[in-house]
Each structure stands twice: as C-alpha cells, then as structure tokens.
C-alpha cells in the first residue's frame, strides 16, 4: 500500500536545551500550548536559519499539537522559511509603488550580481532572493528587506553595493 510511515521525532533528542527553554517560556505565557506555535517556529528558525520537516515534527511533539495545524501556521507566514535559505534572505518588494519606481531595474541588478533567480540561493550560501508583497515603505520605494533592515529608495547600483557590503561582513560569532 502506498502509505507513508508516520514520522515521530522526539523533541528531547532533536531540539537543544536552549530552544526547549525558550519555547517552554512562550508556552507558559499563552492560554494554550498550541498558541505558542508561531513563537516556537521563530525560536527554531533563529537557531537554525530555517524550519525543516524534522524541526516541525519536533515542535509539534513539544507543544502536543497536530503537525498539520503547525504546518498551517508555518506556511501562512512568509518570514518562516520551510526550505533551506542562505545567510541573508533578500525580500524585494514587488508592490505597485516599487514597480513605478524601477523595482525591475533593481531586481535585474541583483539577479545579475548574484547569478540567481527568485527562490534561489547563491552557491556560497550567502544570499537567497525572494519577492515580497508590500513592505509598507511605499513613500520610500523601491524597498527591500534583509534580516531586520529595510533598505529604501534603492537604485540598481546601491542595491549591489549593499549586497557587497553584506557579503564582506564577518558574521558575528
């Protein structure tokens, strides 16, 4: 029969102590354990860069919630990554204001510079390029977001410059 074996991941073996502690803290301040789902996904993503299938099963085990429900939360939010991403994730805004202010030029320059398309990661694992529906900076369009930073009033040259700076930055260890 074409069934797929149920995957059970024991959270205690999979998650680190600090992850478990952080998630337990979130769960303790919520009305129900599953309400901590979104925070738990963020915790794991902060530690591991993205949320793998195994991470998902481990969180669902820890919070005693159905994995289908947690997957619904994880896939709803575009800032939870369910696939491996690079060190820096570029969210380039493709809403109407950015289109009017030459977001396409910026996009082409980034693609050219990194040699990747939307949804791809550079070979060195530094950058992933994603589109984003409106970052809320229409008055300073075009806009992109990398990590927690918004970069506004971009030009093709400035965008490349920012990426070069980031690439040269040492990771704070």
């Amino acid at each position: 029969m074409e069934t797929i074996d149920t995957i059970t991941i024991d959270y205690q073996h999979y998650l680190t102590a600090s992850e478990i502690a952080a998630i337990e803290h979130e769960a303790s301040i919520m009305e129900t354990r599953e309400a901590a789902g979104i925070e738990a996904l963020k915790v794991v993503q902060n530690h591991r860069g993205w949320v793998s299938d195994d991470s998902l099963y481990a969180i669902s085990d820890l919070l005693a919630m159905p994995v289908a429900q947690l997957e619904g939360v994880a896939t709803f939010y575009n800032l939870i990554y369910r696939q491996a991403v690079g060190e820096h994730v570029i969210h380039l805004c493709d809403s109407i204001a950015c289109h009017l202010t030459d977001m396409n030029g910026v996009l082409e320059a980034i693609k050219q510079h990194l040699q990747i398309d939307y949804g791809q990661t550079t070979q060195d694992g530094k950058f992933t390029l994603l589109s984003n529906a409106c970052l809320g900076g229409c008055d300073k369009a075009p806009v992109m977001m990398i990590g927690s930073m918004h970069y506004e009033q971009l030009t093709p040259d400035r965008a490349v410059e920012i990426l070069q700076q980031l690439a040269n930055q040492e990771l704070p260890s």
Partner: protein
Amino acid sequence: MTENTVTIFIDDEPYQVSNTDNLLAGVLSQKLNLPYFCWHPSMGSVGACRQCAVTQFQDENDQHGRLVMACTTPVTDGMRISIKNESASEFREQIISAMMTNHPHDCPVCAEGGECHLQDMTVMTGHSAREYQGTKRTFSNQYLGELVGHEMNRCITCYRCTRFYNDYAGGKDFGVYGSKNQVYFGRQTDGALESEFSGNLVEVCPTGVFTNKVFSAHYTRKWDLQSAPSICSHCSVGCNLSIGERYGSVRRVMNRYNSEINGYFLCDRGRFGIGYVNSEQRIKQVKGIEQQSPLQLSALDVSKAFSHFRKKNFLGIGSARASLESNFYLKNIVGKDNFSAGYHNDEMQVAVQHSKILKQCKPESLTDIETSDLVFIVGEDITQTAPRMALSVRQALRNAAIDKASTMGIPSWQDSAVRTIGGTKLSPLFSLHSTSTKLDDVAEQALLSPVARISLCVQSLTNLLTSLKNSQLSHIEVEQKLAEYYQHQNHQRQLNTAEQNFVASLYQGICRAKKTTIITGTSLVNAELLADLAELVQCFQERDDINTPNLIVVPANCNSVGVLSLLDKHSLSVEQMLDKLPEKNNQQQDVYQGVIILEQELARCSHNQIQQLRASAKTLIVLDHTKQRLSEIADIVLPSTPVSEGDGHYINYQGRVQKFHQVHPPVLPVQESWRWLDMVADTLGIKVDSEVADNVDLSTPRNLNKQIKHVNKQETCQSLTQLHHFFADNYALWPQLIAAKAQQESKPVARMSHRASGRTSQMANIMVHEAKTTQKFDDSFSFSMEGASIKQTSDMPFTWAPGWNSNQSIGRYQEHINGPLQQQQKASFITFSTSLAENENWQESKDIAVNSSAKQNENCLNYVQQKNIYLSEQQAAMTPEFQLLKQSNCIFINANTALKAGVKNQQWCKLVFSATGENMQLVSQSVISQISILPNLPETLAFGNFSLCQSLSQEIEMKITLANDQEVTDYLSSYNDDILTAKASKESLLTRLKENDQTIPIRLVSGGLTDA
C-alpha cells in the same frame, strides 16, 4: 417556528422567517435561490466566500441600500432586503468570476460533474463566459488513502473541508497551508486520512476536490444512477442512505437526510462499506436442490427438495443482520421453542438486560444527544461501533461554548465567533472503558478499567446518588463519602484513587448538568454492567433535584433490537441449541431434522462447536448472501439478498422501525430470505400460537403444553405488503405499526432521475428493443425514470431540485433549514415485552464476577480487543478497500508489565496467552505483536487490535518475550500477503464489474422465483 417568526421583506414581498437563524437560512427556508459556498446548514456561517451577498435597505424609503453577506446577517423584524438588486447580483457574479480564474474547468473528467454545487451556483449567478486569459495556479495532489481522492486544482477555498474535518469531526491530520492565492487543503504529508468521517468531505466539498475514490473507479454520472432509499446495514444507529446502482452493480452510497438521525453526515463504514454487495464471495446459486430445467431454478424444484422435510422439526438460528421479516418468519416456521438468535449464553444475559432497559425508557435520537450538556460513555467505543453517534456526541460537547457565546449575544450559527469565544471549552464527557477511544481526547476524564471495575464504579455512583441527598458537596467531601462506603469492604471491592476521583467528578458533573446522556453498549458482553446502569438510572427517579439521564444501549448490528423484540422466554442460546441436537452416533429417534441458519455465521462459535453442529444436524440449511464457513458445510444453501437487493425492515438502537427498499432486482435465483422462507413455509407449514398474545397478560400463569396450530400456507407472498398482511392476520405479536404504515395508494416514485440517459440503448447488447420496465408488485418505487416526483415521499431515492443538482438540494424539501422533511411521517417504534427475562436461565449471577476477581492471580489480566470501524462488522469487513486498512498487530500494556518483561515501546514481541481457569475455550495462543506502553493503564488490563478466542470476562495469563527476527519477518510477510491479497481482489473485482456492465440480464418482473 411560532414566537420566533418575524416578517421580513425580500424584494418588497413579505415573508415569515425565523429570527433564530441567519438571513441566508431564512431566505433558503422560503425556497428562494441565493448562492452560497462556505455556509453549511449544520456547520453555520463564517463569511469566507462572500457569495451570498444581498442588498439591505435601511427602511422603505432607502433606494440605495448596502451590501451585506446574508449568512452573517441576523434576521430582524421588518428588515428589507433585495436579492434581485443589480449591485448585489453583479457582486455575486463577480465573486464566481474571480473563483473561476483558478478553477480548471475540467468538468468532463470530474466525478462531481452533474451534481456539483459550484456548477449550480455558477449558473445561478448568471456567470456564463470564460474571460480570464492568464495562467492558473496549480498544485500537486496528495494520496489520502483508499477511500477519498484529492484534486486540489479544483479548490475554491471555501474552507468547508477543514471546518468539517477538524472543527466538526475533531480530525487532527488535516489542515490548511499557505496564504493568498496559494491555499492548500490536505494532510501534512501523503497518507490515509485518519478520521472515521473522512467520506463526508465528498459531500461537504462544493466541487470535486474530494471525491469518492471507490465510486470514481467505477464511475457513472448521478443522473444515470438508479437509487432507492435505504438503511445502513453496518451498525445499530440506522442512518438513512441513498444507494445508487447502474448495470447491476452498486456504485455508491450517499447520505439521505433524516432530521432525527444522521442529518447530513455518515461515517466511512456506512459510506464505503457497501462494497460487500459486489463481492466475489457472493452466493449466486443454490446448493443441494435438484434443478429440473437447466435454465432456471423453479419454485417446484424447491418444494420438491423440501417435501422430504414435511412435518419434520427444525431448529432455527436467526440473525441481527437479517431483516425483521426474515427473522420473524423463521421463528414461526421452526416454532418459538426452537428459535435462537445465534446468541451465546452470556449474550442472552445481555439481551435480557437490554430488553428490560428498552422496556423502561426509550433511548433518545442522535439529534437529542446533541442537546446534552453531560455525556457519560461507559463500556463502548462508539467511534468504532456506532460512529455516527460519536459525531453527535462531539456536537453535544460544544454546548458549553455555545452557551458562553449566547451570554455575550452571539447566536450559535456564528460558527467562527462561537469557536473563538469557546476556545478549548467543552461540555463534560466522561469515558469509562477497557480500551482507549478517540473521544478520550475531548473527555474531561477518561478512565481505563477492566470490566469488573467498570461495574464497581457504576455501582458506587449509584450508592452516592441514593445516599447523598446533597448535590452541593465539594469534590473532597464526595471522595471522603466514597471512601467511607468502602472502608469495610474487602480490598477487591474498594475503589482506588483514580476510580474515586473519577466517580466523584462524575457525581458532581451530573448534579450540575441539565441534561445527561449515558451511552453504553454490548461489546463487552457483560450483563452485570447493563443491570448496574439500569439501576443507576432508576435511582435518579428518587432525586427531585437532578434530571433523570437518558440511557442509550448500542448493540452490535443493524437489526439487533429487531431480533431482541422477537426473543421470548422460550428462545434458545447457541449452547442450548447444540444440546438439543442429538449426539453423534446416537441411535435415538431424531427429534430434529436439522437446522435452518438465516444470514448468520456464528462468529463466536469455536471450531469444535461448528463441527458439533455439522455432525449432529442431519440437514443444515443456510440462507445467506455471501460465502462463509457455515455455507461451505451446509447441505442446502439458498442465496439471499444483501440490503441493496431486497426489501425489509431494520430496527435501530432506539426501536425505530425503518424500511430499506430494493435498489435493483437481484439476478435469480437470488432472492430475499423472507421469500425463500415463504417457499419453505409452503412445505413445512408454520406454527401459530393458539394462545394469542404472549405478552398481553403477564400475571396469569401459563400452560406450558399450550396448543400450537399448524397453518398450511396456501399462496406465496408476492410482496412485503402481502407478507405483512399475512403476518398481521395470523399473529397478534406481529408489530401492527408496520402493516398500517405499509399501505399507501399513490403513484410509485421513480428510482431514476428524469435525465437518465441511454434508456433505449441500455440493453442494446442483448436486444435492440427498448426493454420493458421491470415490474414489481406493491412497490412504492418504479425501476424507471418515469414515476411520481421524489417530492411525494419522505423516503427520497435521491435528492434533486431544479437548479440544485448536488445533495444540497435537500434544503428544497425541508420544512425549514435543518427541519424535518416536508413529507416526513411520524417515526414508528417497536414495543418490547419482558418475556425474555422470565427465563431463569438468563438471570444474571453476580457471583461469577465477584469470584473471578477474588481469585485474581498476579500474572492474570483481562485482554480486550479494540473495535475497528472498518473491520469489526462482518459485512463491511468484506470490502477490499477496508481490508487494505488492516493494521499490523499492536498491544497496549502497562509500563510495569513492560518493565518486568524487559520490553520497550514499539518493540516486536511474542505474546503467549494461556488460560488457567475452568470452562476456557482457549488453551494457549501465541501472537507476534508490537508493544505500546500506556502509563495510565491498570496492570490487570491489556488491549490490542487482534482477536483471542476467549470470553471477555475471563482472565488469562500473558507471557511477553522479545520476538526473534525470524518470527517478526514471518509475521510481517503474512501480514503483507493479506494486504496484497486484498489489493488483488480489489483489482479483480473492478475488472469483473466493468465486464459485467456489458452483460446485464433483463428482468421483467422483480418478484421471487415465481415471478416470470
């Protein structure tokens, strides 16, 4: 609909509408057309699809109005709305237009085509042109198991599937993923849907995302099906079904609305378990009767064969899955002293208690269960044995949240608001059983106990209720009282901490509850438990401050209660029957010629008992529709009909009398059991009690040697109606209600839709003439597209209304939304006598239970087999798709037991069960099984998914050792072989059915053998 009725104006016309429901329900109740997707009559409103927009006006001077969603708008007195208003109708058209941008328009290859709610609503809005030029989003589909197909591209994101699967039915393995234009409904990974109610997705989905996989494999359009109103033959709830057939094979089962029972939903056993009627194992020929003509068996052949038996006595074994008529007939052919229901001694004791309870109080309907605010389920896993009832229990648990919302002014139909306010708040459910059940997750307390302890808990609750007159005591005080009662008892009769806590909480819950429902069943085969529960309910009557709960007993089969109504003090158990038969090689005069076995496989009989039966019965006559171990060893086999090919009545758990109608005529010589018995009766004669009504006067002592009149039947009964008249004329005991109800002088209702296609060419491979419609005597339905409209009857063969091709058309036939059908007749219920209880053989003996628990051995435990929705009912278990769902062996044991044996969770072990006591059938049995450790399981209890030939109350010794690799490999390969066999039989069945489509025989008359 009286004090809540208000006047509203729809397009300036006044209408009387209930203000307890939303505007959409009000509009639809008036039989007006207003399109919708996300709203569902029993799931309420969420306002997700924006399809039911109407214009609401401030007052009669307001010309402009504003758009509102009818499903989220309450009905208020004097409100003015417009459906026809241009802005509203244009809005609705645009909504469809937007949905259609992603819909694939693959209607020709979609199983939903022709009964698609999306098609209906699209036409209703007037959207008729495809204007979108862009690309459509596409998805990959998932494998969701053998029952439900998945085609996500068709999705219009109405959210009904998840609202049903997760919110309504409590499923956990289904979800919604993504956002915006990329919303996906399905499981987290591929795999079979785990819910027992997954099949409802097929009807809940307004289009073809979820389809009936079995139906799709051998597909026909809805309008080409020949359907008849039927009753589910798989459990005692008696859900109403519409069974659809084409070219001689049953294609599918759909829900048939009944406001008091199943409403809009069925369980998967009911929907997909019909597969057995197409099985390869069906008996199609008689055995043991000499046939004169090579072409056909004639009635003369049968009477010749039976002429040897004239004036001979037979024993008769009826069955809880055969119709009431067949059982009644058999009882009167063999005589009541020679009749058995196929029950063993312990089952007879249970039957006594069950009939006493039914005599005392009438169990409530599923709709009534949904109004309870406390449910206590004891000794039955209803999710597996009466699944539709478990779905109703889940709705009852929502009452706490609905009450909370109503205090805040939120009506119950505001589904998402009520669920948000309610959060995890549930009305209390207490579960007390020997196996874990799916309802444990939503239970306030779920306690696992062996059956003797369950009884003890019930008894102590009774004690509390009779002795404590104060319902305001705190939990600790109640527990103290409990401890006091039992301090002088011996250790075995004392409650442990968990039990004490459970009973005390339950007592407090019951004191607070406005309406308590107690549900139990017969699957533990324990008469003491039923007696204790009856006593519990009795003692409520002495308490003025607490409402008396309703007690529901769930028996095993579709007609268990029907058979129960036929049992009397003369009825025999299987053991007694075997004793009556002469020993092998006994030369004494044979009292009995043999045994007539009606649709019964005697599943609980040991191999030895079956051999004894074979050896001691001179003639073994079996009537059944499918091959089984008794039909293999019988001298005469008479092929009978399953539910789809015959007429008859089943009595549900409440005693509700329900008729199932023939969907299509069987291929001769297959005919209903009662027709065979009618022919047999012509030769054997029937026995009519001269002392008329057995249960009229119970006070006078009866003469044991009473006269039994032999009646020689003159004519064959041609129809069920004739049979009922014959019964009614001869037997005071025959329930008159059926005979009175059966007569209806009206034009028969068509079994086919008036759009049935290919009517003139259906039989072209056999003859080019248009075949005459099959005639049937006294039938209230015709085998044709011609006949009265389905509107004429509450027993609708299928549902359809102009503009409404899907099952949602049922709203057109309800008095009001969720109300009874317009033609609904008052349900009839059967009455019970206590005659069975007069037989002293079946008096419960409490000593047995006490004794067995007293000599408790440390290594002994109770093993209980878990019930399974797919495989626990014999008929449904023959469906190949269900056999594919068989799980490998698994046993749940206590942590200490595992520790002692040195085994860990999920390890494969070899279990050796051996019996120590007397009267044990089981000597020693070894099973290879995976271990699951359950912390809260008592040490004296284990349960698993495999069967042991041992009775439930017996304690057995279990030795656990780790299985070696060879043993595990051998077991798994035999398990895989079973799965492969089921897969092969599924495929060969499909091939055969498709071939048969080309060669259906023509039957001009659907009577019995004598019809042509």
